[in-house]
């Protein structure tokens, strides 16, 4: 088993892993904080989008990676945040940071309402309900055109500088990482993993599975609501088809699964690698990029269902349960 290979290959043990991750994290943080002083506009644009997806993938991971309950409609929270922001700013002249927070609050409230009805049951109902959620919201926004502008969308005051978007989105990404770190190292997080691994047994051990799932779902919606709001502010124009795009949910899921579900570092790792890959493919093969991306997905699911971190663990290159 894993024992044999661990003798041959030097393995990343707990203490080394912590030091390595702390050093790497500190370096990356300093570098990213300083980047607007020397980075090009293109680099900052790419990084803003990467922050967005780190925030989304890490959040999605809290419900779907930890508890195993697949949310196929997480874009609903992103879109709701964007529209909340746009309406508050254009119609009520609310200060933008407050409007961003309002996006997070409304997204959490929506998660509570959906979770209360769908998470009492075990199994696939949740996936199906959330799949409908994103689409239902898109159609509602489209139909309610005297408020939302329908298919014409909402045009926002252009933001000329990139710095506020850059640091704003970086902060939101940091919040998502902080939340998932807090979950991962808590008893609550372990309860969520237990639910994923065997919900009946988890209940029998005294874990209130319904309450845990509901909290996880609400926690997973906060940051996407805020990220949606900031995204709207950043691009300056929102309309239903692009803001509620199914592809956005697919991306958060794929990035999180590629890195390693139910871990803190997995979604970050997955987003960084796949997002850059996606950018390269998109730039070089404008007609084939979706096909290539799809092919990569199939390969991930077939060859490494536990993600990169799971693969490294199974190979015995890092000790089990060390990198979270």
């Amino acid at each position, binding site marked *: 088993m894993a024992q044999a290979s661990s003798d041959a290959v030097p393995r990343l043990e707990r203490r080394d892993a912590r030091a390595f991750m702390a050093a790497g994290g500190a370096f990356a943080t300093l570098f990213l904080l300083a980047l607007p002083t020397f980075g090009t506009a293109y680099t900052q644009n790419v990084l803003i989008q990467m922050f967005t997806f780190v925030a989304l993938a890490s959040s999605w991971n809290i419900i779907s990676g930890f508890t195993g309950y697949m949310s196929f409609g997480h874009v609903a929270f992103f879109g709701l945040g964007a529209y909340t922001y746009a309406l508050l700013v254009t119609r009520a002249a609310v200060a933008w940071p407050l409007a961003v927070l309002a996006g997070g609050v409304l997204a959490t409230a929506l998660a509570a309402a959906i979770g209360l009805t769908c998470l009492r049951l075990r199994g696939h109902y949740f996936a199906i309900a959330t799949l409908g959620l994103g689409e239902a919201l898109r159609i509602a926004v489209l139909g309610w055109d005297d408020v939302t502008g329908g298919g014409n969308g909402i045009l926002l005051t252009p933001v000329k500088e990139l710095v506020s978007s850059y640091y704003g989105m970086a902060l939101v990404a940091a919040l998502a990482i902080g939340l998932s770190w807090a979950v991962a190292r808590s*008893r609550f997080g372990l*309860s969520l*993993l237990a639910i994923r691994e065997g919900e*009946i*047994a988890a*209940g*029998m*051990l005294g874990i209130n599975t319904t309450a845990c799932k509901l909290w996880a779902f609400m926690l997973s919606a906060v940051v996407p609501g805020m990220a949606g709001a900031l995204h709207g502010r950043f691009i300056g124009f929102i309309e239903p088809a692009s803001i509620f795009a199914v592809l956005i949910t697919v991306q958060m899921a794929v990035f999180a699964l590629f890195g390693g579900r139910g871990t803190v570092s997995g979604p970050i790792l997955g987003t960084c690698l796949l997002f850059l890959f996606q950018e390269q493919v998109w730039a070089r093969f404008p007609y084939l990029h979706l096909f290539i991306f799809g092919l990569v997905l199939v390969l991930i699911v077939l060859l490494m269902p536990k993600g990169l971190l799971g693969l490294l663990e199974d190979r015995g290159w890092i*000790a*089990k349960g060390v990198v979270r």
Partner: protein
Amino acid sequence: MTESLLTVTDLVKRFGGVSALDGCSLKVARGNITGLIGPNGSGKTTLFNLICGLDTPDAGQIVFRGERLDRRPPHAIARLGVGRTFQLIQVFPELTALDNMMAAARDGSWGQSRARALELLAFVNLTQLRGERAGNLSFGQQKLLEFARMLMSDPGLLLLDEPAAGVNRVLLERLLDHIQALREQGKTIVIVEHDMNVVMNLCDWVCVMDQGRLLLEGPPEVVREDPRVIEAYFGR
């Protein structure tokens, strides 16, 4: 008879037209190992599921330490002190053995829980494997892990669904020793078991179920000799 810890009264559970339990009543005495036997389909596992809250009864009641259990959710019943193992093992395969244990810790500090988890892993000889994923353990080791995990919250009543099934002789001896040790600690244990040797050697009291009801009960030596038991298993 000594004081009863668990009292089941006139329990009825139907699945469609089939009555899995049809007015089942029985009492479990505190500190005893009670064997629950009966042919397939006599309602043993259904009874366990109702006690644990995995299903709600159509009629009747379940009282444990003076509290009604029926219609409570599983986690609430577990927190009242009911532990259970399954006929098909239910470890958390992708979590390490130690995390399996830690997931069952409800109160106390992280350090206290960890100390208890390690103590229980030592009790079932799994200390060496604490960092291994539960899914990589052998069948017998998983069975021991599930058993130890149930003990994390120190339940007063243990429901064991076929602990001896698929277990080799050596492991079985160890499992039986563990169960005996738990009785000496004052735990009340109910065992569903098909292996008659296990039932006769281990149990203080045996309840025989047939067609969703209690057919008869008594000390193992008496039950073994009763013609109705053989009849229930093999027909007239």
